[in-house]
């Protein structure tokens, strides 16, 4: 029962493997199967929500903390699948494989958040990463410029490099403590806290997850991968893996031994660099996905703001913020996937007059972007506000002021997209048709974004309890 959602994902992946063997594929059938399996996974994670067990020789822990993330991952998966129902960017012949890797990647992420042992953790991470590496070049190549290949290669090379850092750090941890179990590592590291190697090891491991989260200076892959991958793939890459990265970042930041001031200073610098770099470069983008990519770098900087408080309420806020971030971004990618006619990338001008062509998508886009920009009462505002409050409580006044300025800069590029959708003339761009499931998904997303923002206390209280169980 405890690992029901993982089973559901595995079953889903195997089902698509079987489907990939069939010669006659019906696009609609494939996508409906995917959405159905996604919903099944969500239900499974609801069922196993309150479980609390340790399995596989203590390598795999199912507790409040992991189940919170699993719930968010599976819910996000449902919306990603709904957003990418048409899968315009992927050729029909490889769609079953595509879905198989998508489910496998989610499986990797789910086991990642449950892993409490370094080897298990590494295997889970690679399962999720390698599935992603394969999904990127699966894009249909109509233009013949093969950008997806470039993106795929970049992704895998940078990814492997980051993994290398992380493995190196893990080897140090093992060498210092003689164990791979996180529960044993924490006290053991405290004993060797005076050695710089201990600190170095943890930072190396952290950098692997900084890569996933796309924090400056490990962000290089983001713009090219976002642009090169198909819209649906980007919608996945940009959202759900961040949940896994944040879950593990929290686990490892807790671990840091000895003088934490160096780490805090490091994170302050990285946070500021990410925010300024992401926001300033996003200002001049014309490709919507690239812009969202840079905005993602800025948001990653905000997440560091919560982590560097080094206390439970900061971590809880981060959990809340990243959950909200996933839904805000999926809202934007739902629009991108549906507005794109043939699976091609969208320039901002392609959204011109969207409110005339498809009011519902325009509304969803506005809600998603305003939420990302941090306008109340959406979830982005509440998350940003709580992160700032938490950092200020720790006395980082200058950091908070600079972060607030960044929130101001960010408004401009989000607004320029909203402006295109609401004020520009559509010209000869065609109307956008959406199906019933997408409509339902859009309404659900809008409700989630607004309700999570207006009533955050339950979620934060829950995240607080969850994070205290692992501290």
């Amino acid at each position, binding site marked *: 029962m405890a690992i029901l959602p993982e089973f559901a994902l595995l079953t889903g992946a195997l089902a698509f493997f079987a489907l990939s063997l069939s010669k006659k594929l019906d696009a609609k059938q494939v996508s409906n199967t995917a959405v159905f399996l996604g919903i099944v996974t969500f239900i499974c994670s609801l069922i196993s929500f309150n479980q609390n067990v340790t399995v596989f020789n203590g390598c795999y822990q199912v507790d409040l903390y992991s189940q919170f993330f699993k719930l968010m991952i599976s819910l996000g998966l449902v919306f990603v699948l709904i957003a990418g129902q048409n899968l315009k960017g992927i050729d029909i012949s490889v769609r079953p494989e595509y879905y198989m890797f998508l489910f496998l990647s989610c499986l990797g992420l789910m086991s990642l958040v449950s892993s409490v042992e370094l080897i298990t953790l590494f295997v889970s991470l690679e399962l999720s990463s390698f599935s992603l590496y394969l999904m990127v070049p699966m894009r249909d190549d109509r233009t013949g410029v093969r950008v997806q290949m470039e993106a795929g290669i970049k992704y895998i090379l940078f990814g492997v490099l980051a993994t290398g850092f992380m493995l190196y750090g893990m080897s140090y941890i093992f060498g210092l403590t003689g164990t791979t179990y996180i529960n044993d590592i924490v006290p053991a590291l405290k004993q060797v806290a005076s050695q710089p190697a201990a600190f170095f090891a943890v930072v190396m491991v952290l950098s692997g997850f900084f890569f996933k989260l796309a924090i400056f200076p490990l962000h290089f892959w983001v713009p090219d991968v976002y642009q090169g991958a198909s819209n649906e793939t980007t919608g996945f890459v940009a959202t759900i893996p961040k949940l896994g990265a944040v879950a593990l970042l929290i686990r490892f930041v807790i671990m840091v031994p000895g003088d934490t001031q160096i780490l805090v200073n490091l994170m302050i610098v990285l946070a500021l660099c990410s925010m300024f770099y992401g926001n300033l470069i996003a200002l001049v983008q014309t490709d919507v996905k690239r812009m969202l990519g840079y905005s993602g770098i800025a948001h990653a900087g905000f997440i560091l703001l919560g982590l560097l408080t080094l206390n439970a309420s900061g971590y809880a806020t981060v959990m809340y913020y990243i959950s909200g971030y996933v839904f805000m971004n999926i809202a934007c990618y739902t629009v991108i996937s549906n507005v794109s006619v043939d699976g091609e990338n969208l320039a901002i001008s392609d959204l011109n007059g969207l409110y005339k062509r498809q009011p519902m998508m325009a509304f969803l886009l*506005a809600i998603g972007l*305003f939420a990302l920009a941090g*306008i109340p009462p959406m979830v982005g505002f509440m998350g940003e506000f709580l992160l700032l*409050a938490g950092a*200020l*409580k720790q006395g980082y006044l200058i950091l908070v002021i600079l972060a*607030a300025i960044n929130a*101001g800069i960010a408004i401009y590029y989000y607004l320029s997209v909203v402006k295109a959708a609401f*004020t520009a003339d559509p010209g000869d761009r065609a109307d956008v048709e959406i199906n019933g499931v997408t409509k339902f998904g859009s309404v659900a997303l809008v409700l989630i974004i607004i309700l999570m923002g207006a009533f955050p206390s339950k979620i934060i209280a829950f995240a607080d309890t969850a994070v205290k169980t692992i501290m």
Partner: protein
Amino acid sequence: MDSLLINEGFPLLSFLVFFPLAGAVVLFFFSGEKFARLWTLAITIIEAIVSIQLLTGFDQATPKYQFAEAYSWIPQWNINYILGVDGISILLVLLSTLIMPLCVLASWKYIKTRVTQFMFCLLIMQVSMVGLFVALDFILFWVFWEFMLIPMYLLIAVWGGPRKEYASIKFFIYTMAGSVFLLVAILALYLKNGSFFIPDMMWQNYSTTFQVLVFLAFFLAFAIKVPMFPLHTWLPAAHVEAPTAGSVILASVLLKMGTYGMLRFCIPITPDATFMLAPYILWLSIAGIIYGGFTALAQSDMKKLIAYSSVGHMGFVTLGIFVLNTRGVEGSIIQMINHGVTTGALFLCVGLIYERTHSRELSVAQGCGKFMPWYATFLGLFCLSSFGFPGTNSFIGEFLILAGAFEFNKGLALAAIPGAVLAAAYMLRMLQKLLYGTPDNPDQSHLKDLSFREIVYLAPFAVFVFWIGLGPQPFIDLIHVSVTNLLDQLHSWQQVQGVAQVLLQ
């Protein structure tokens, strides 16, 4: 906390805040244009009628927050849902509820495309306007303050004039940029007090540096909203491009949020900084009055003219606030309402001409008075009111403010006088051109006089022009206790600080 609040049985304020929201949600499901108009009119009228209860139940003898409601919202951070009105906010709440049905009526034919969405935006707008004036928790205030940008942005961006993109973005960015630091100031205050409840933050012993920094953060946000010279440049653009109802809401209610913020937050939260910086702000107000007057004199676009006149009129309001005496502050609150009534009505009048001639140029509509006697009557009245003709509402407000300014500093008051003269000059110039024109007027015989609907929505403005102008006492009674309480606390604060300084020496 409870000692400051007076509870009533029925959650009247919550009703006023969320009733339009419920109405807006209904518009999602029924999309007929006619239905949308009637439904929104019904919602806003009910809202206006219900809000009258605020008047009947309001106790004028206490400075406490009345009709209060307090619920826990985010207990981890001590953020609460607290609402209440006092003398400072009650008139502004009533202004926002009473003006909305008139805005709906004014958009009846003016808005031809996407009527449902337009009405939706109006209702959402009302939620944030009423919410902002009754919020007593700083985060709740901030939520309404920021949220309001979205419907207003859409009102300008979707239904606006030819340069709507520029105007709407400028409006949004200006306001947002100003309020970023407001948020930091709110957080800093929270860390000092451990509470977001606004009265908890007042009259606390903060260090002077802290006060000055907080004051500047507040002031930047509010001065952009007012807007004070030299931060006013978004206003003409936004006014010119916004549809009539948008201009009316912008002029009548949104600008008041800035001055409301100064009264509600700047003075009681950072009293020392207020005393320290008031002289600069007063002269900035004078600059705004004179600058607004001269610029208005040079405009040929009627909306621009009224927009610049707003800069001048709001300069009077900030002048009244920062002379920090009873006459000045009461005058500025009355003047906030006056400006809402008069300028709102003037924008409606411009909208009426625009609907007929499709231009806002003075020269195009020149000499229309002959064919539109009803219109001429109303326009004449509102123009007189705008430059403070005795017997109209603005006279009372400006008189009180100038009296307060004389009490404070004669030079200051004298410097403001040219503003009043300029107001007469630009308003009479507009009136003369529009109604009489020159012998070579364009042929205006095709112009139709006001319809019954148009008279219906202009008449209430005229009533208030005379009511406040001839019998302002009931309005002053409403605000008097709260204002004197605020100023008494301010001056006793000053004395305490003075004594402390003497003791230290």
